């Protein structure tokens, strides 16, 4: 198949007039978002009693459930941004340049959704900013939640800064192709821009990528997020050193899937985008998704074996309950089958297929969501105080809780659609490399 090479014109195509497909997608996402807003309104009016959460222990329920599981999931998906950016900028793997900005935008969007999940989870969201900020000097010393807020803020802000800085030269060079109506936006982005700053900004971006690659995987989803769980000895299912690697491997798996999905959607929506984001990018993302999911599955093996062999009673009970739960195995299959699929593709047993990759990405993302929520819930159903262990308890999410998953997904899609109408979502240099490879003009 011969396709025209990718050019800067392709980059600005999304910013032009929206197509029918675009409106359809926007419409569906808006419906999801509205359902979520209504559901949340009901919850604000009636309290968290509308969920199936309850006090653990004598109350027989779980107090952290779908909202927290979804929160972890969104933060996990957000890690795709730095992985790609680090590969491109620090390791100079140019292959992934086309998806770098998409991945960074995914970080911003997914972290925002994670923030929304926290708001939804709280009993008194109206106080959260004041209470947290005023007590921060005290709480930062001891509270894992305070640490969590610190690092999420840092990741968000550093990624946004990275995006802003690297966007400037692209906007400058594409300015005449961009619609005039959005001039105020572009002027703001180009605040105090001078083409001489480009090499300086390149170096600053390098430092940013370095800071984030240490911060995000090692200290956010491999750090403060699992530490919320791993540091509480009251829940043997959570406690321990294995929790952080588990969380990180799950996060990176779902992040790769997320970046892949968004890239595939944009390829589908706009003509000639198969040359903007060539097949080899999808192939590579699939490969990394496979690697991370392999590590994830390996860590699940650790967890299950340690919990089943001669574990202390608390750990043993949680492991047994998890293994007896069909939902756990559904989640595992949703991750193992895509892993097998990617492996077979790479060994040449199966042909590369975009549709197959899309299905694999969706499966993996769903699997991680289910596994994270189950991890939260099972931990609370089997607390350290074993006297409570005979209390019958269970947890099934209510429609209002499920609406938050649907709604935040819809909001993320809307976010991407909105941003793609404002700025080019693929970096210029990705397209320029194509031109130079072909001998350019």
């Amino acid at each position, binding site marked *: 198949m011969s396709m025209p090479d990718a050019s800067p014109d392709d980059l600005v195509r999304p910013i032009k007039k929206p197509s029918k497909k675009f409106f359809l997608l926007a419409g569906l996402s808006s419906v999801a978002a509205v359902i979520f807003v209504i559901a949340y309104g009901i919850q604000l009016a009636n309290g968290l009693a509308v969920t199936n959460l309850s006090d653990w222990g004598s109350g027989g329920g779980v107090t952290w459930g779908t909202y927290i599981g979804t929160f972890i999931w969104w933060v996990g998906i957000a890690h795709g941004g730095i992985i790609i950016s680090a590969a491109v900028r620090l390791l100079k793997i140019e292959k992934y340049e086309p998806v770098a900005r998409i991945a960074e935008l995914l970080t911003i969007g997914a972290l925002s959704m994670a923030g929304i999940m926290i708001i939804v989870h709280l009993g008194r969201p109206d106080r959260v900013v004041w209470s947290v900020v005023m007590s921060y000097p005290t709480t930062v010393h001891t509270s894992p939640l305070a640490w969590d807020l610190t690092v999420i803020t840092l990741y968000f802000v*550093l990624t946004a*800064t990275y995006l802003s800085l690297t966007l400037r030269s692209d906007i400058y060079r594409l300015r005449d192709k961009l619609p005039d109506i959005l001039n105020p936006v572009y002027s703001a982005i180009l605040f105090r821009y001078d083409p001489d700053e480009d090499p300086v900004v390149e170096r600053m971006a390098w430092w940013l990528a370095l800071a984030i690659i240490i911060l995000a995987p090692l200290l956010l989803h491999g750090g403060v997020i699992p530490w919320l769980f791993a540091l509480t000895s009251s829940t043997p299912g959570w406690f321990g050193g294995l929790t952080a690697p588990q969380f990180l491997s799950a996060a990176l798996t779902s992040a790769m899937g997320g970046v892949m999905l968004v890239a595939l959607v944009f390829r589908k929506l706009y003509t000639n985008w198969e040359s903007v984001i060539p097949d080899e990018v999808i192939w590579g993302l699939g490969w990394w998704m496979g690697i991370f999911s392999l590590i994830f599955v390996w860590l699940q093996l650790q967890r299950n074996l340690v919990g089943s062999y001669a574990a202390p009673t608390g750990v043993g009970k949680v492991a047994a309950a998890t293994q007896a739960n069909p939902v756990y195995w559904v989640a595992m299959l949703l991750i193992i089958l895509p892993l097998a699929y990617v492996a077979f593709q790479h060994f040449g047993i199966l042909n590369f297929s975009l549709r197959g990759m899309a299905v694999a990405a969706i499966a993996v993302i769903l699997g991680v969501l289910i596994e994270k929520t189950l991890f939260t819930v099972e931990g609370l159903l089997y607390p350290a105080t074993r006297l409570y262990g005979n209390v019958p308890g269970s947890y099934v999410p209510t429609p209002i809780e499920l609406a938050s998953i649907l709604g935040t997904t819809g909001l993320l899609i809307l976010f991407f659609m909105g941003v793609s109408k404002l700025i080019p979502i693929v970096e210029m240099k990705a397209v320029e490399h194509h031109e130079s490879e072909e001998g350019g003009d």
Partner: protein
Amino acid sequence: MYALLQAAESLDMYAGIQPGTILIFGIVLVPVYAMIAGWFGGKPRDAGVALLGVGYIATFVASLWGGLFVLSMIIYALFFSGGPMSPPFL
């Protein structure tokens, strides 16, 4: 509101260096310190652009928490402002 201020400085039993102190200021923020140092040091150097970068960071922190504050105030006004234990506006 004043009570909240008092709470922040009130009798906290965990005074002094705690795990969080070392974790946040001694580990998590180290990449940030290194990054800022890298921006202002090394070549090619341009303090103006580096300051712009710092400005971006500060603006984003303020917008993030400011925006969140506005959202929380909206929630307060709609659902929690009728006084303690008031029925919701619906």
